[in-house]
């Protein structure tokens, strides 16, 4: 038994969990073609959720700040990119792939830019006065969430908005009898790219070193003369921008968005960071992929259970590892 767990640890430990889930699902589902479709959908969903959740997790890890208003960035990102795409609808429909790419690039950039600016504002104006006071943090960020939801309602109205997709992302690829929606593959690739970029920044650069050191022991890094609070503003901005990007991608994935989107995603994001362990990017990725896969598999195998699947997953994992799958060292 001990040897077995050691072998498992050598091959990746908890990182094998999604693989294990996928294998079990393969046996249960039976049909390989639908299994591939579901797995791709799950991975794509997981990647988008990862984008939304990674900022929240890092912000908590670095500064012990939990931003209940994080989902506001998600919905703002979704709505801004939807508006931008609608504005450029001429380019979206064109057969020229360059214009398509430019349109979606501009839309996502708008969401990112908004996330950066709003994140800066949020950090400096709303959260800075209540550092180290969890109760007031929860209350204030909750209040900010209420206000931003109302602003979304005032600007975009309460009715659902259709999101246009660029022409080259419409439709799906066919490999034999396996269908893969192009947008899902796109979401997965983009999410993976962001993860690799984050990973490289955190593990290979000096700033990343400081962030990781700050997560582990903030006082020590400050004692060495580094301004953690400035670094934190940066992390907050990037985290918010990633949430906005995740929201923008989610909008394209769902194609129909309502102002309730932020609230719905917030629950999922919370579950993901709890499963993954607050403060670690790897844990968040793992949690997001698990949630994405489980949601798709269970939605196929037992649609009735699908609604509670995230919750059950969270309970099971918390019973097994109370501080999440891969918590940051603290």
């Amino acid at each position: 038994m001990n040897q077995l767990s050691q072998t498992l640890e050598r091959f990746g430990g908890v990182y094998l969990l999604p693989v294990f889930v996928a294998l079990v699902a393969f046996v249960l589902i039976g049909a390989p073609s639908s299994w591939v479709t579901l797995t791709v959908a799950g991975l794509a969903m997981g990647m988008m959720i990862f984008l939304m959740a990674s900022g929240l997790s890092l912000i908590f890890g670095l500064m012990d700040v939990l931003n209940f208003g994080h989902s506001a960035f998600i919905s703002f990102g979704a709505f801004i990119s939807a508006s931008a795409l609608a504005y450029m609808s001429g380019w979206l429909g064109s057969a020229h792939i360059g214009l398509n790419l430019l349109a979606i690039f501009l839309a996502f950039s708008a969401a990112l830019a908004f996330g950066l600016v709003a994140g800066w504002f949020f950090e400096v104006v709303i959260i800075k006065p209540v550092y180290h006071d969890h109760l007031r943090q929860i209350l204030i960020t909750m209040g900010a969430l209420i206000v931003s939801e109302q602003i979304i309602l005032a600007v975009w109205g309460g009715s659902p908005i259709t999101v246009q997709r660029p022409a080259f992302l419409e439709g799906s690829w066919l490999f034999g009898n396996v269908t893969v929606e192009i947008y899902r593959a796109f979401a997965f690739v983009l999410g993976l790219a962001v993860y690799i970029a984050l990973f490289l920044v955190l593990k290979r650069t000096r700033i990343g070193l400081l962030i990781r050191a700050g997560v582990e022991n903030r006082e020590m890094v400050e004692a060495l003369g580094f301004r953690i609070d400035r670094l934190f503003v940066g992390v907050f901005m990037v985290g918010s921008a990633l949430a906005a990007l995740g929201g923008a991608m989610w909008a394209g994935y769902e194609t129909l968005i309502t102002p309730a989107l932020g609230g719905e995603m917030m629950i999922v994001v919370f579950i993901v960071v709890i499963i993954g362990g607050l403060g670690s990017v790897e844990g968040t990725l793992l949690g997001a992929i698990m949630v994405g896969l489980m949601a798709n598999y269970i939605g196929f195998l037992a649609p009735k259970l699908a609604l509670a699947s995230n919750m059950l997953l969270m309970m099971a994992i918390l019973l097994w590892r109370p501080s999440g799958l891969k918590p940051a060292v603290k």
Partner: protein
Amino acid sequence: MTQTTKSPKGALFIKGLVLTIGALLLFAPFLFQDTRSLEVAARICIFIVLVASYDLLIGYTGIVSFAHIMFFGFGAYGAAIALKEMGPGWDAVLLGAAGGLVVSIVVAIAVGLLSLRVKAIFFAMITLATASVALVLASQLSGFTGGEDGITYKAPDLFKTANKLMVDADGKVARLFGVKLNGKLAAYYFVFSTCLVLFILCLRMVASPLGTVLKAIRENEARAEAIGYRVVAYRTFVFCIAAVTASLAGSIYAVWLKYTGPDTALSFSIMIDILLMVVIGGMGTMYGAVIGAVLLVIAQYYLRDLMGVASEALHGVPFLPELFEPDRWLLWLGIIFILLVYFFPKGIAGTLWDKGARS
């Protein structure tokens, strides 16, 4: 609790205010003789209890839970389902309330033991997730809960509007000061008296030694543990007490409203209302619950009218009318909420209370 030994001006003022509100609520059917006002008064009664029980958690023990509305919903749905299945009757009300109560206690103990060991922030997230699952389940299990449409049912015969409590010489409903003595009145006083009892129980609880322990836990968890109080046990206990109170309040509301649906008993916006009420009224003061609930419920019903007027007046100005639209009242409350948390974290009751003490 030192206010018994010395009574500063602020404390007296708050107490007087709360007593006045109590008196107004007691005579509400006679003072404000229209259906809408009675609706508002009953809603205030229910929310006072709901907010007071939430204050036990957030104000006295320092636990942030977002599942409070879920327990309210359990109580409401318990009574609603029992009244629907068994027909109008007191046995149905009692059975339904008891059923809701049992579910609430079981869920509260499970959630509490699972997650009250961890940080406050974890607990807030887990309760939020639990409550959202409850909401989704309520709208999905439509055979049982009526789904999005909710359940409509009849209240016990005593509370029917057609029921005559007293008849005059002509056999019509007797009037007292111009108010018909019918079932509606009985229903209101049922709500009022049960809520009063529940509120006094909450008040009694925070004045007891238990309340002192809770405050000790809020102020310094490690020290409370070191003195020998089992923090997790106390937290779970108070979480259960709050859940039970909320569940009872839910059952009462279900009997009063004769309708239970996700919007009235489970939705997250009610949770936000409760949060606003506690913080605006003043956390950790019980009396604050009364003030917050009254202010917010009145704002809910009447501020919209006012904002409609403002929106009309600003007609033609770009974008501003959108911000003043009656549906946007939460926007302004949210801003007030943030400012209050910054500058008056003790809320109305707490701030006034201290003011008297200082002068």
